[in-house]
């Protein structure tokens, strides 16, 4: 008899529905009680049979009154593209949820969330949780262009459902929606006009590095969700190491104190062979 309580063991799930979010991003929805019990920032390993297995932030979707597990994928490489084109009724494999999750300190009064692209997947969940905990929260949603703005409808619904103080601000690289420019610039201007006690971020690493620097400058704690090439997700293969930490087990969320010690953060990552590569091309 298979032990269905061991979440490391791959479980096959049937896709219930696929939702088009943007021209390049879709959400894949499936029945899974462990995903429904997950926390914002945790991830699943998603098996696309015959193609790949990828770490993906785990989401929760309501269809009618029933909660489903979900992953939101941008078509990019072979694995994510194959997952993007999956249809309702097809099967994928999942294991997890893995990793730690964003923390909400007791007595937190106001927070600023800075997310870019599919980094918004855990952050929009976190936005809902923070407003539920009566934390005044501003969410910055960054994308390349207007058509790629992700989860705006979710953020708006969270605002409508809550009477508490929530704000959503947008930035796009090309200025077609919200502020033109980076989420970090927008965050800086917001921090200059209002006081915050916590910064949360997920997205491209150099963006998160910018958020860390804002945290240092304004003396505000930061939590960032890091990404590294991953194989096992259970802390044995070492592929996802950043300095002496394993992103799959010690993360994916790291706080300011740890980020300060991670000299590779925003500087370098290990490729599939384990060689250190630089985020910024060397001259």
């Amino acid at each position, binding site marked *: 008899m298979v*032990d269905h309580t061991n979440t490391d063991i791959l479980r096959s799930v049937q896709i219930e529905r696929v939702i088009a979010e943007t021209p390049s991003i879709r959400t894949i929805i499936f029945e899974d009680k462990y995903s429904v019990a997950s926390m914002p920032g945790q991830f699943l390993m998603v098996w696309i049979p015959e193609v790949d297995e990828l770490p993906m932030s785990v989401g929760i979707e309501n269809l009618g009154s029933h909660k489903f597990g979900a992953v939101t994928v941008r078509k990019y490489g072979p694995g994510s593209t194959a997952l993007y084109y999956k249809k309702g009724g097809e099967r994928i494999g999942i*294991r997890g949820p893995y990793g730690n999750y964003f923390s909400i300190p007791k007595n937190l009064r106001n927070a600023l969330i800075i997310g870019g692209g599919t980094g918004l997947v855990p952050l929009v969940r976190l936005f809902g949780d923070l407003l539920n905990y009566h934390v005044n929260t501003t969410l910055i949603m960054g994308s390349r262009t207007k058509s790629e703005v992700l989860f705006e409808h979710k953020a708006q619904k969270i605002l409508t459902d809550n009477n508490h103080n929530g704000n959503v601000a947008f930035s796009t690289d090309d200025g077609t929606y919200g502020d033109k420019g980076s989420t970090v610039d927008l965050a800086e201007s917001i921090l200059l006009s209002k006081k915050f006690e916590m910064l949360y971020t997920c997205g491209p690493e150099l963006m998160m590095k910018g958020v860390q620097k804002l945290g240092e400058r304004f003396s505000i704690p930061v939590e960032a969700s890091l990404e590294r090439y991953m*194989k096992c997700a259970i*802390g*044995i293969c070492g592929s996802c190491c950043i300095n002496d930490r394993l992103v799959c087990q010690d993360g994916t969320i790291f706080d300011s104190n740890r980020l300060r010690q991670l000299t590779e953060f925003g500087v370098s990552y290990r490729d*599939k062979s384990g060689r250190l590569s630089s985020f910024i091309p060397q001259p």
Partner: protein
Amino acid sequence: MNLEIKSEMLNLEVAGMYLRNPIILASGFLGISQAIFERIYDEGAGAVVSKSISRYPMEGYRNPTIVVLENKSYINAVGLSNPGCEAFSEEIKTNDKVPLIVSLVGSDPSDFEIMTRKLDGSGIIGFEINLSCPHVQKLGLEVGDDPQMVKSIVETTKSNTTKPVFVKVGVGSTNILDISQAALNAGADGITAINTIRAMKISIDNFNPILSNKVGGLSGPSIKPIAIRCVYELWKKFKVPIFGCGGVSNWEDAVEFMIAGATSFQVGTAIGFGGMSVFNSISNGIVKYMERKGYQSVKELIGRSHKY
């Protein structure tokens, strides 16, 4: 009895390598970065074996590369991903803290000659030749099943280093004792037994083999009884230093390997279930066991089952 005396009970010398305890990180687990090596040492390991290093970088297989089974065992086909000996020698150049054994993989003696020369001057205590990776063609087990090739690889490696050289053997098509004999005749200082064993996992819902390579290597408690048998036979025949490897999950398993004939033992899969604290918990368990039995040194355990 204070802690210092207790930890001295675990000190031992293996083929010229002085270890603070017999608990060694097995090759293939966690081992590509100096920062992680230092963390594993701080967590209590007596020594660390790196992932197998090849002459040139290898990306390994596409995911899935690891499947978790129900009985705390894994099947993996990572595909020997590693940064290559050039980048790896750069990685460990500052190592003056961790007793590091470098695992080497290659397809002919010239690979081993180049890698041994490149890495011999680094802060390492020895080499382990991986002749038994079960899932990569032309490397590992395909080489290790050929006694003549084993002989020339070991001779080449030994002639380029004064450090101890262990040979890691597996359960392939050639008898483990014959391959070990060839390695020892060629000058190997000891044997690591055993590597993973060829295995598969197939999804009954999707019908596909799960690993991208389809076939991988089985590790963990599933292979422990086989590993114990191999160590027992090796000790009985050769009485040479042996690193026991295969399914050590707790101190009881560790003691069983040592009394079968292992001089030290390697831990890998158990980290996935117990985290890095497994090193200290095994140490503590062995010390308490030795106190109960009235032993002064862990060396007294080695091969003890052969009296019966």
